[in-house]
């Protein structure tokens, strides 16, 4: 799986400015994208029922939380900026918003990568659910955004996409957190 993201790493390492230019020309990278949401509002039944194996070996599916607000975030320990979003999600988690379920999923698939991810979860004291799923699960979500980079976050409510956030930054994180707070407030009115 690492090879899939190798081009992204090289871009970050060799030409940070280029990456910035690439992301800036498409403003959707920075904020939740309304057009994407209009195009792909539904999360398929297959994706909702895909098994996610958590770091504590428990198995879950997005469908298990169909009445909740799901924040699905793709992160991995070898992407520095993934820590930034993880840290923000940690803060959101401690707010104990009613019916909000945060799930971090690593797109990695080798044994050593998953061991590293487990260590990352432990080291960073990630208290929300975290684990991994099959390649198809990751690819299908990445196909929605047409962006094969990490981190990416999806806010799902009632099987529908309510927010898509590609990348991370203080403003992106704040937008994500505010969206989740807003949906939670609406749902619990």
């Amino acid at each position, binding site marked *: 799986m690492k090879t899939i993201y190798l081009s992204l*790493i090289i871009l970050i390492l060799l030409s940070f400015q280029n990456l910035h230019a690439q992301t800036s020309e498409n403003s959707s990278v920075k904020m939740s994208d309304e057009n994407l949401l209009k195009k792909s509002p539904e999360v398929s039944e297959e994706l909702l029922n895909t098994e996610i194996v958590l770091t504590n070996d428990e198995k879950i599916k997005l469908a298990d939380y169909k009445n909740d607000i799901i924040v699905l975030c793709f992160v991995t320990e070898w992407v*520095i900026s993934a820590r930034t979003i993880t840290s923000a999600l940690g803060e959101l988690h401690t707010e104990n918003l009613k019916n909000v379920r945060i799930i971090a999923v690593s797109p990695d698939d080798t044994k050593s990568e998953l061991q590293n991810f487990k260590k990352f979860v432990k080291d960073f004291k990630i208290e929300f659910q975290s684990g991994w799923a099959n390649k198809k699960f990751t690819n299908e979500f990445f196909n929605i955004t047409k962006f094969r980079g990490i981190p990416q976050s999806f806010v799902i409510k009632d099987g529908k996409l309510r927010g898509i956030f590609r990348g991370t930054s203080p403003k992106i994180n704040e937008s994500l957190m505010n969206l989740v707070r807003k949906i939670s407030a609406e749902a619990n009115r």
Partner: protein
Amino acid sequence: MQQRKMVCRKFFGGESGGNLKTLKMQRKFLIIDDHDDLSSGLKELFVKLGYSVITIENRDEAVALQEIDDFDVVITDLDNVDRIPEAVQNDDEDDSCLPEVGAHKASEHIRAFKICATGFDRENFDETELKNLFETILNYKAKYVDEVEKIKNLREKIEFEFPSALSLMHSVLNYLTKRVEKLGVIDAEDSHLFIALDEAFVNAVKHGNQFNPEKNVRISVDVSPKEASFTFEDEGEGFDVAKIPDPRDPENLFKASGRGVLIIHNIMDAVQYNERGNRLTMVKKSDKIESI
């Protein structure tokens, strides 16, 4: 008052303080504030939560204070360097929990803000409590004290000292990036500053202090109209930056080691490690000098 109650509810899980109300031991806080916009509000919050809070507002009291090490947390918010005690202006080991301002021009207006938690109880170390404290202080300051302003003859010194705890990262770095933006010095978003700060923070806690809460992390930020300088120091053994593998070398493409340092160099305008390798200073020049 209503707003302060909301802050209390938000960060402690209830108007009366949630689980922090049941603290097993009473923490002692010292707040040194020469303009009373932080101390009175925070004191009200923390006393309600069962903490013991002493506030000091003038130079003589601060200088005379002998037992500063007895406090779990010392918060300093001084608006004018001329009113900062001499002991604070000097690099005095005995007063290490107070801000260090250093040499400055007479024409400069210098502000100093510091949270020092090196006295925080380590025997029964509660990282969640520490994280909530930092979040509360920083959110309160950002919301009720800090203003959006262009700094002309102003220098602002911001310092944090705390036990190694990764969970503090979001609140500390969020505050810093927003503050330099509020001061009109750097666009935190476009500059990717947050990535460099993230890397430096994690390196200090993870690689430097090996997650050991007995060891402290020190972050010092000096913001002027021209630039913002960030120093991260840990209490680890340090490392030789020259020995880090070059991640651009094809042989190292799959090694995670070295990527962070390279990214820091790409984002920042100047990067320097001390000889031991446990202190990193990074400077980001202002991208808005012309508009000031």
